[in-house]
């Protein structure tokens, strides 16, 4: 049993390392240098970082209160709601993006938003909307688990000391949950950085306009510019490793 399990583990580790090394092995300092000095890569890095940050902030803004409601309140249809929130995780991002494209392009509400608030379809704002859809369920899931692990009596005791519900949440529960929320936010941010399918559908793949890192990889491969694609892939690999490291660090924080 032990040997068999070890074998399975070794196999998968080998598979993961193969992927990592296939990318990293083809990278030379020169390739990276060329990539970093390319205006296109610089643009993609900057756009990815910024859009992922904004999308994650929105995801937190919506996700944390939603998670709190799911963790603390009992109401009818809670299970249905819970499943709906998970839908964007299970649904292929391409389909989510397709749905969003139709929503903003064809429906009355979508058209109203486009005309009066912000144009989303085939613009950089579309990236943020697409990433937000993918990131929010992550925030809700992780944060809900954190809230559920905190005994509600802390809040009740805070209220008996004179705090309002909201104040007890802000001063007691939220600080107690912040580590878990931060870990969830980092994961969500990493998801945003890698978001491709929904972005492609809603924001399109326009060079130097809606070109995030994954879109850049896609565009460069499609025109046969393998070296640049590899360099960007390598950057994303580094981002992924940094993400894992930072989550581990957060977990160890006091």
């Amino acid at each position, binding site marked *: 049993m032990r040997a068999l399990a070890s074998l399975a583990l070794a196999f998968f580790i080998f598979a993961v390392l193969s992927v990592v090394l296939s990318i990293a092995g083809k990278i030379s300092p020169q390739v990276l240098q060329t990539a970093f000095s390319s205006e296109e890569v610089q643009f993609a890095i900057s756009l990815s970082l910024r859009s992922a940050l904004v999308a994650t902030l929105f995801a937190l803004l919506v996700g944390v209160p939603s998670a709190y409601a799911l963790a603390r309140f009992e109401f009818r249809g809670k299970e249905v709601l819970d499943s709906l929130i998970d839908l964007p995780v299970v649904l292929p991002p391409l389909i989510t993006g397709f749905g969003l494209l139709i929503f903003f392009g064809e429906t009355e509400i979508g058209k109203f938003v486009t005309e009066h608030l912000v144009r989303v379809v085939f613009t950089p704002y579309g990236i943020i909307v697409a990433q937000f859809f993918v990131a929010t369920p992550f925030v809700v899931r992780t944060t809900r688990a954190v809230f559920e692990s905190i005994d509600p*009596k802390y809040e009740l005791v805070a*209220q008996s000391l004179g705090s309002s519900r909201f104040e007890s949440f802000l001063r007691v529960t939220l600080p107690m949950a912040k580590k878990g929320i931060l870990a969830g936010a980092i994961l969500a941010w990493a998801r945003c950085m890698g978001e491709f399918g929904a972005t492609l559908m809603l924001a399109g793949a326009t060079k130097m306009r809606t070109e995030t890192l994954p879109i850049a990889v896609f565009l460069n491969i499609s025109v046969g510019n393998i070296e640049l694609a590899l360099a960007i892939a390598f950057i994303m690999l580094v981002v992924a490793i940094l993400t894992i490291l930072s989550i581990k660090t957060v977990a160890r924080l006091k």
Partner: protein
Amino acid sequence: MLVIENLRKKLENFMLEIERLEVGDGEYFVFLGSSGAGKTTLLEIIAGFRKPDSGRIILDGEDVTNKSINERKIVMCHGRYLFPNMSVEENIGYGIRGGSRKEKVREVARMLGIEHLLKRKPDTLSMGEQQRVALARALAVEPKVILLDEPLNSLDRLTHESLLLELKRIHEKTETTFVHVTHDFIEAISLAERMAVLRYGKIEQCGSVDEILRNPKNLFVAKFVGVKNLLKGRIVRENGRYVFEGGLRIVLDGTHECGNVVLGIRPEDVLIISSSNCKFRSENVFEAEVLDVYPLTLSTVRVVLDVNGIELVAETIKSKAIRMGLKRGDTVTICVMSAIPVAERLYPPVS
């Protein structure tokens, strides 16, 4: 005054039901009951953490049943729920409104002797210290009522004792009403002015500590307040005196109803004497065989006795047991100093 009126709350296995209970201003009131008797739920209803199915909680004439938790002036004090993200100082200061927060924190911290802990985080404190901080935090908001949920639970003996004395001292210093729940009857009799014995959500008996100790209403209360010897028998009248007959013949003080009864004898009322000429009384003296002797606390021992085939449990001072050289197999003379008929109408009289 805190009044609980017609309170009903359905719990998993039983109904919490209190017809009427009054706790006076500044009183130290204890709910005594085994775990699962509904004590914590009752406290949580008073605090507003939970809503009753029906009934009212009235504080100083005002119905607070539907008031939100933070407007009740009733504070839950619980050492396990110090806010882990704040220092002791911030914890104590949490509920203080207005300017003089720092001075107020110092003042209550000094009162509880925890000034040296102010900069520490709750998870670095011992359990006793956590309880003190929780009490300081509750006192700092100057509430009308402080609710204490088993505050002395799972403390080591020394801390238990010092914190118990501290609670008593602090209560005497403030004008706050303390409502304390516990399963420990020693704790209850040391602290309470009045208490209620709770069982499966109902009050079995409520009254002053003395009243309950001297006159437990039924077997459950008697057992709970430490009456170790319960003998079944009957009371008869003989030459103007009331005598209990049931394995042992015990002459009772006062007047009683004749008939079947359970007689309660507190272990400390079974006096072990070395010779048969009892100095205190001439009646209720028996020969007994020592079945077992074991330490109960640092200063007391429990002695299990066989009196004419009836087992009696006695408690005595350790030094006395040593002086007498009390050991298994000894024959001693005992004197039953006092006995209380419990549950006089508990089982039907024999026809």
